[in-house]
């Protein structure tokens, strides 16, 4: 987590271990606080949402990406620029619907789960990284793109890969009227 060059401050690098441990402690505490997995997932999503609505301006300020003209451009920017910048990984993007508004990000490396083997038996439907879904949803909402984001596959649950699905909700024609 370093700042872009040209800033007067020294390079503040915080250790990745600290970040992963903090996230793990957060999830563990939520599991203690809530009985049901759905509640934990919802809480993580809400937290991610409040991160996402702030993170988007930081992302736009640092990268100066232009307005995306299509949903696939947006998905590409999320995968190739945003994920790279904040998590250091680049998921691959695939479009999974004929209407061109459903996309999947396939992560083969996920730094948040580096130290997690598998979910405990009583927490089988916990989405460990659900905060990422909230972040993406919050960030997209601030640029006027409503989307549903969820985990389609999760390595921690035994699937082959970790897959995040993004479904854009509004039709492309409606977007024109939302300018300014």
């Amino acid at each position, binding site marked *: 987590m370093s700042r872009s060059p040209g800033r007067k401050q020294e390079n503040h690098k915080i250790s990745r271990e600290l970040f992963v441990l903090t996230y793990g402690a957060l999830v563990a505490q939520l599991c203690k606080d809530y009985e049901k997995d759905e509640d934990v997932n919802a809480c993580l999503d809400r937290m991610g949402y409040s991160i996402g*609505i702030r993170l988007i*301006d930081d992302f*736009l*300020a*640092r990268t100066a990406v232009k*307005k995306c003209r299509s949903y696939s451009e947006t998905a590409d920017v999320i995968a190739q620029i945003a994920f790279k910048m904040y998590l250091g990984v680049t998921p691959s993007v695939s479009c999974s619907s004929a209407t061109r508004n459903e996309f999947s990000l396939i992560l083969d490396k996920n730094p948040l789960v580096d130290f997690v083997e598998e979910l405990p038996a009583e927490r089988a439907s916990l989405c460990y990284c659900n905060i990422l879904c909230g972040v993406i949803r919050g960030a997209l909402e*601030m*640029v006027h793109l409503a989307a549903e984001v969820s985990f389609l596959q999760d390595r921690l649950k035994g699937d082959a890969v970790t897959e995040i699905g993004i479904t854009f909700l509004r039709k492309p024609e409606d977007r024109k009227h939302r*300018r300014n």
Partner: protein
Amino acid sequence: MAIFSVYVVNKAGGLIYQLDHYAPRADTEKTFSFPLDLVLRPHDERVVVAFGQRDGIRVGHAVLAINGAEVNGRFTADGKDVLEFLGNPANYPVSIRFGRHRLSSNEKLMLASMFHSLFAIGSQLSPEVGSSGIEMLETDTFKLHCFQTLTGIKFMVLADPRQTGIDTLLRKIYEIYSDFALKNPFYSLEMPIRCELFDQNLKLALEVAEKAGPFGPGS
């Protein structure tokens, strides 16, 4: 070279931050004897010069102070009506300070919302789809530069017409906003920005921008 002020407007058109960095104060104080050769008239909440421009006192300037005491709108510091006071020969000779009145915070709020509406009209009038909106408003005494982010926040900078590098300054202000306002967990989005660190870093950025340009003869 100077940057006069910075305005930050949220998505709904409300002013969330305003800084007057440099205000060219052109106050003139003069002593007058009866009868007053300037024509004064009330305007809104102030007494302004309507006719008789001379010696740096221009039409539109407001009465700021009488005999050193600041006036309170249309009334002197001790509660007398300004026009009555100046109509009475017994009060002369009198020293009056004229100058351009400073905008009150309510007026700034109104002007920011008006600009927000003009900006929306500007982008809709555009013959091309996806216009950036008003980027610059130019007059003979200042240039207003505006930058709207993809999230709908507008950053406006009023600067001297010869000042360069405002585009970079606007991007830098966006970065400072995303750092010191957004990353502050106690700052709620779309609300007025009251973060000390934001103020300090913004002032630093303005000073850097002022020092940097323009490059040219006699700068």
